[in-house]
């Protein structure tokens, strides 16, 4: 029976009560307790810093060459916090409410409320660390709005908020390394969890430079390993982002929650050809000022500039007048797909819509001219002033667009199309962020807990840092307080030996296949199956086909993959093969989960379940639960359900009209 361990009592008191009553570990005992953290993104780095500060002995691992390169760094737009600095009606409750609604009523109320409560602390913490958020002329912090909300609560640092927050957490982590509280292992990949007496007690990691396997003991293990969007091959994730650590934990007993919940981000640069290795996001913040449109005429081959205003269809503004271009991501993505599928797409592939800044340039240009006292400015002056404002706000994003496409977005509208961006699903965790394996925790994007079936913009950074800085330092004590008598277990223990042997055998098996097809080619094929049949729209027949195709692909992979090089050396193809093998297994589970959930909710759109207007239609009577999958054996899982109770927010048909 799944127990989410949500504290009793009124929603707004749960976290305070929990903190007041959870067990503590005394400082003298903390010194003897070792914690392993996998991944050094926002969740991992902040957890490592916070736990190191408390006096625990921490080891951190990342596959990159430096913890500063974790993929959190690529987050562009911002981080939400219920500060209400803008006096526009924001509050902890409203952030909580927006997040639950945005997640299409598939998240836990208790977790989300806690997230909203600590959001303000995050901003304070980051500013104190020297994170240079954008400021107004008066010296105070600036805010902007993001999709799915009607207040301005997003803090940002130009288009590189993720980089600035991660550098803040990385600096805090490096400080703990300098103080001797944390040991960092870069270019290391976790390849298995070691369980002793049912508890997580360590890991097997591979040194990616030498290829050697290492054993590491920990009283507890934290997985902060990010999302699994790369199961689709093409996504906005970094090339190295993978599910391997989470998958190994899953196979060792951690349930996987809502694997089918995938976020397809509406504003990405479209695919340009078969060579494409990844997709690039254009921040959601662009929808603050940009307007999205397609021609009113099907198959219109004219250039954007030749299409007059009255022949343009600003379909988001038309369909959702209240939120317009700032509808949540799932809604915006589906609307773009709907227009392109109906033959209104633009560009050579016809799989794109326009994101147009012409209006914003005019609007800002006029305001600037007024500010500067320029009377009756000519069109050129207005444009010049407007471009300057847009450049200051979004310059780096526009530059990035130009580098990739060779087109100047100040002159012509950007072409955008939805792409896989984030995964709301992940390892199932309870209120304390513990998985179903005692002592094994999961933080940040890697867990399933806070975003339901759709994540709102600027909430991923918030969750990563909330989990790392403000949640785990409390909840882990509640577990470790009972563990203070456990002496470090030597890594010669038979459990470590057995786990290492298993990892070694798998690597040898992979290397021994010596087939004909490259790892990359398998990954591409998996991605195509997933995108076509488990992507933006899903149906029963497609999902059933996908499961068969993935099982077939798996057989082929394990009999015909070719990995060059050796084991005891730097071998990126071997690293990738390990990851793709896990992605294949995950892909099958995602399809099974999507097949089981015969309702639409958030990013999960089952064609069989939609309203007359084509909106996602939930089925609360049958599916108001978290699907937590227990791994049984190869291609076999058992479904456990955690019923979602809504005590405060009443689930309703989400409307942004």
């Amino acid at each position, binding site marked *: 029976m799944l127990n989410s361990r949500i504290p009793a009592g009124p929603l707004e008191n749960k976290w305070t009560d929990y903190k007041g009553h959870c067990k503590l570990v005394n400082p003298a005992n903390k010194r003897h307790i070792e914690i392993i953290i996998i991944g050094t993104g926002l969740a991992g780095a902040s957890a490592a810093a916070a736990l190191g500060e408390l006096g625990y002995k921490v080891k951190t691992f990342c596959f990159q*060459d430096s913890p500063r390169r974790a993929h959190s760094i690529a987050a562009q737009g911002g981080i939400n916090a219920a500060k209400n600095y803008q006096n526009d009606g924001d509050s902890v409750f409203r952030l909580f409410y927006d997040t639950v609604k945005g997640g299409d009523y598939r998240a836990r109320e208790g977790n989300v409320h806690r997230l909203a409560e600590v959001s303000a602390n995050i901003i304070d913490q*980051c500013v*104190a660390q020297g994170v240079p958020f954008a400021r107004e002329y008066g010296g105070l912090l600036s805010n902007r709005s993001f999709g799915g909300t009607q207040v301005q609560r997003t803090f940002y640092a130009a288009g590189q908020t993720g980089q600035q927050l991660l550098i803040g957490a990385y*600096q805090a982590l490096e400080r703990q390394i300098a103080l001797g509280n944390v040991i960092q292992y870069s270019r290391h990949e976790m390849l298995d969890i070691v369980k002793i007496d049912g508890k997580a007690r360590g890991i097997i990691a591979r040194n990616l430079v030498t290829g050697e396997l290492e054993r590491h003991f920990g009283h507890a293990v934290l997985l902060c390993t990010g999302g699994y969007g790369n199961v689709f091959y093409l996504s906005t994730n970094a090339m190295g982002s993978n599910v391997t650590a989470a998958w190994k934990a899953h196979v060792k007993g951690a349930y996987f929650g809502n694997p089918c919940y995938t976020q397809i981000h509406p504003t990405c640069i479209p695919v340009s050809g078969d060579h494409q290795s990844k997709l690039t996001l254009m921040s959601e913040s662009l929808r603050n000022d940009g307007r999205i449109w397609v021609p009113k005429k099907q198959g219109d081959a004219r250039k954007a500039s030749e299409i007059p205003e009255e022949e343009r269809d600003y379909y988001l503004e038309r369909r959702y007048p209240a939120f317009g271009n700032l509808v949540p991501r799932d809604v915006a993505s589906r609307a773009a797909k709907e227009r392109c599928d109906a033959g209104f797409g633009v560009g050579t592939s016809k799989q794109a819509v326009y994101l147009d800044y012409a209006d914003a340039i005019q609007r800002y240009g006029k305001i600037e001219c007024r500010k500067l006292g320029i009377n009756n400015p000519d069109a050129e002056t207005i444009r010049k002033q407007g471009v300057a404002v847009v450049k200051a706000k979004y310059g780096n994003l526009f530059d990035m667009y130009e580098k990739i496409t060779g087109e100047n977005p100040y002159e012509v509208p950007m072409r955008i199309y939805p792409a896989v961006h984030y995964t709301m699903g992940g390892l199932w965790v309870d209120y304390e962020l513990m998985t179903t394996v005692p002592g094994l925790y999961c933080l940040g994007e890697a867990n399933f807990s806070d975003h339901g079936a759709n994540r709102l913009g600027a909430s991923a950074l918030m969750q990563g840092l909330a989990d790392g800085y403000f949640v785990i330092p409390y909840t882990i004590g509640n577990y470790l307080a009972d563990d203070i008598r456990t002496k470090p277990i030597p890594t010669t223990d038979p459990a470590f030996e057995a786990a290492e042997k298993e990892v070694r055998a798998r690597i040898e098996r992979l290397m021994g296949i010596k087939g004909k097809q490259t790892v*990359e080619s398998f990954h591409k094929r998996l991605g195509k199956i997933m995108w076509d049949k488990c992507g933006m729209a899903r149906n029963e027949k497609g999902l059933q086909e996908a499961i068969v195709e993935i099982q077939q692909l798996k057989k082929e992979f394990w009999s015909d993959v070719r990995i060059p090089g050796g084991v005891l050396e730097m071998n990126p193809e071997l690293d990738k093969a390990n990851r793709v093998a896990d992605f294949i297994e995950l892909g099958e589970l995602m399809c099974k989960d999507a097949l089981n959930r015969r309702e639409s909710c958030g990013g999960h759109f089952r064609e069989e379940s939609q309203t007359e207007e084509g909106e996602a239609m939930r089925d609360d009577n049958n599916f108001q639960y978290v699907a937590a999958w227990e791994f049984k054996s190869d291609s076999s899982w058992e479904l456990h359900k955690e019923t979602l109770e809504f005590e405060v927010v009443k689930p309703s048909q989400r409307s942004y009209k």
Partner: protein
Amino acid sequence: MEHYNMNLTLKVWRQKNKDDRGQFETYQVKNISSEMSFLEMFDVLNEELIRDGKDPITFDHDCREGICGACSMYIDGRPHGPWQANTTCQLHMRAYKDGDTIVVEPWRAQAFPVIKDLMVDRTAFDRIIQAGGYISINTGNPVDANAIPIEKDKADLAFANAACIGCGACVASCKNSSAMLFVSAKVSHLALLPQGDPERKDRALNMIAQMDKEGFGGCTNTGACEAVCPKEISISNIARLNSEYLRAGFTVDK
């Protein structure tokens, strides 16, 4: 934008491991689309090498959107290739034409030993940050974020320096393999903010000491670092670093 395909000759540095001497190998790549990124062209080449039973070329890369700082190729004598304010992963093949020859090497610096082929070890940068590239504040202590207003110009300047992605192009471009641009960006980012003020002296002294210990060279104000920096970090930071260092060295308040 007109698209075209091209055939190219690549001369790539191959080195099995840090102890190997290493040498250039020449490769022909065909039908490369002008829409590809530079690294996608390497993906194409690597797929061919694997199919031919050869060892693919190892290189660092991750986000492929110019922000993680992992990619690090020295292309035709210039870190990150010919485009201004750019990373290797954002370089696209329309920068080249049919028949071109491109020479690709790893970052070269004593403090960045080669791990394999084009991949180098940049952990020296982490150790420089450990020497003081942070503000010593524990989690949970801070005052309200708006309690200390910061002049917008100063905040913007701190941000411009915090934009450093730690790729090491500055070191690779420098004839002295100096890390002064990297160190000065971090010291400036923190020294410009009131939060960073209490530790600014120790920070400058300790980070410089670690930089020297790692084997990076001195700065002779050539300006190559600024010219190749993908994030356009200004060389004026080096002047600020020098003044921070002098101030810390010549004034005593303990």
